[in-house]
């Protein structure tokens, strides 16, 4: 990797034409450099605006801790999956199977714990199922060559079907799990006020941010999502990158499954079903591009906060529940339009 000491190249020549167009160019380059920053500033503005609205709309509820406590306990279940999903979307891919993977691995978790009474074994099996489900997705997408949207529709039905078959519509009570340390590590209340899952989401958020922005693997995700062919020419193992990204999606779906099961100490067969669109909405509201090659973990984190607080907020400011989906839709349309305008390629 040492410097070659060559200097012949384009000696003295500058590639930049000196003309009045240069000013405009400078502006353009500056804009490009600030692209991600602008995205993250706008999402911050959106979340600030929404909470301001809530606080004005119902100061009684939104100036007290209780509502935030409630957010901290519910948002992480899909928020963590939104972080993992950000990598999938940055790769230019899609995964629709994660709610089903969540349910199937959560069933495994409940069943193994119920039968053996060993929570660590249950965790191990559950996470392994998540990884395995991700590996099945990778197999279909990378080896067989099915587009991820189509492949994961297949595995979405398959794993939901697996849950239906094995669970026979029955839930699994897991009250005994409350006696384990693991329970407190996952969903305990730190100092009796902060739900542990919120800490998990923050720690994982930092971890995912580092991975995507400061790690070689993150760089490879960006390159593959941006341009698969040139990634290959630059010696990036495209298949390996995709395989790992889908496997981590399965892994964190399983982890979210553990968290949501433990929170209520009950497994139920339709678990995870409400998370599909909220997770994806969090990623897209956050500003990650569906075209791949650009992703923001911070955006997804904040996106999850927005999605997760809207429902309670809408009710609290006095609108009826019928408004919820309408406002979801509005916020998605507006935020995604803002990004599209911000990112519009100029010149």
């Amino acid at each position, binding site marked *: *990797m040492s410097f070659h000491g060559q200097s012949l*190249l*384009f000696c003295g020549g500058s*590639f930049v034409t000196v003309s009045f167009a240069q000013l405009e160019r400078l502006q353009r*380059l500056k804009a490009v*450099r600030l692209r991600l920053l602008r995205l993250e500033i706008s999402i911050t503005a959106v979340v600030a605006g929404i909470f301001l609205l809530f606080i004005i709309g119902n100061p009684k509820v939104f100036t007290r801790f209780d509502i935030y406590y409630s957010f901290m306990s519910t948002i992480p279940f899909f928020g963590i999956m939104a972080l993992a999903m950000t990598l999938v979307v940055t790769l230019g891919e899609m995964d629709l199977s994660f709610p089903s993977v969540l349910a199937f691995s959560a069933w495994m978790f409940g069943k193994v714990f119920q039968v053996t009474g060993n929570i660590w074994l249950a965790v191990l099996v559950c996470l392994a199922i998540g990884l395995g489900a991700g590996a099945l997705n990778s197999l279909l997408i990378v080896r067989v060559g099915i587009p991820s949207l189509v492949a994961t529709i297949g595995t979405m039905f398959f794993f939901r079907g697996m849950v239906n078959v094995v669970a026979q519509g029955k839930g699994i009570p897991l009250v005994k799990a409350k006696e384990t340390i693991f329970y407190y590590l996952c969903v305990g209340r730190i100092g009796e006020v902060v739900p542990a899952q919120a800490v998990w989401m923050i720690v994982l958020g930092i971890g995912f941010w580092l991975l995507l922005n400061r*790690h*070689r693997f993150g760089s490879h995700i960006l390159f593959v999502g941006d341009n698969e062919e*040139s990634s290959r020419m630059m010696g990036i193992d495209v298949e390996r990158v995709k395989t790992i990204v889908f496997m981590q999606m399965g892994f964190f779906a399983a982890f979210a499954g553990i968290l949501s099961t433990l929170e209520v100490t009950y497994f139920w067969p339709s678990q995870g079903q409400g998370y599909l669109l909220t997770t994806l909405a969090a990623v897209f509201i956050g500003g990650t591009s569906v075209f791949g090659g650009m992703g923001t973990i911070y955006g997804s984190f904040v996106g999850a906060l927005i999605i997760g607080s809207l429902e309670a907020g809408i009710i609290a400011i006095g609108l009826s529940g019928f408004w919820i989906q309408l406002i979801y839709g509005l916020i998605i349309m507006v935020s995604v339009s803002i990004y599209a305008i911000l990112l519009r390629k100029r010149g």
Partner: protein
Amino acid sequence: MAQENSSTPLLSMVNIHKSFGEVNVLNGVDVTVGHNEIVGLVGDNGAGKSTLIKIITGVHPPTSGEVYFKGERITMLSVRRSRELGIETVYQERALADQQTLWRNTFAGRELTHRFGFLKVKDQKEETEKLLREHIGFTSKAITTDSMVLSLSGGEKQGIAIGRALYFKADLIILDEPTMGLSLSETRRVLDFVHGIKEKGKSAIFITHNIYYVYPVADRFVILDRGNVAGEFLKKDISQDDLEEKMVRLAQTGKLN
């Protein structure tokens, strides 16, 4: 480097076959590149030039055939391996990722990292800065290591791609259609660069279908046609007009003479 044993060629490819499914792209191609030699690899679209290059650089494995580099048989060639051996490829802007910054693009696939694979962002930025200012000669302040590739012009992208190949030590530099889509003055710079490779005692393969550009800089020409080597000529044995005439005849009749 020039005093290396000149009887063994730097690169030799023997009886290379490559097929994708049932499509045979290369049918037994033999190509050699000598030390300090610039080889012009010419041929029409679909002749198999790009496939041949991808075999040399390890993007595709050959279906059969042998590759020797510096006298050693190379098996299991990968992009990483070929780079370690000293083969660098300039794929023009096709090997740059548009939305990524220059400091990421320069080190794509061979990032400078700490232990556990975390990027040395500062080092990558500093080295990219050096590359931009000293090696490529960008003077505009508008282009920084944080600029994204999509904001550059075609010539600037080309400069980045070539500069990147130069930055990493290479004995053999492969230029895949390096003048495509460039203005006259940008093309001039690319040709100067190829002259520079020769002066430094290195070798290059210059792939093009434009004889005007390759004739002045190459020592030897290899004409590829529908997966076969149709002919080889030293520059001293053939004039530019004759070469061009042969190419046209090849395209029309499938024969060189």
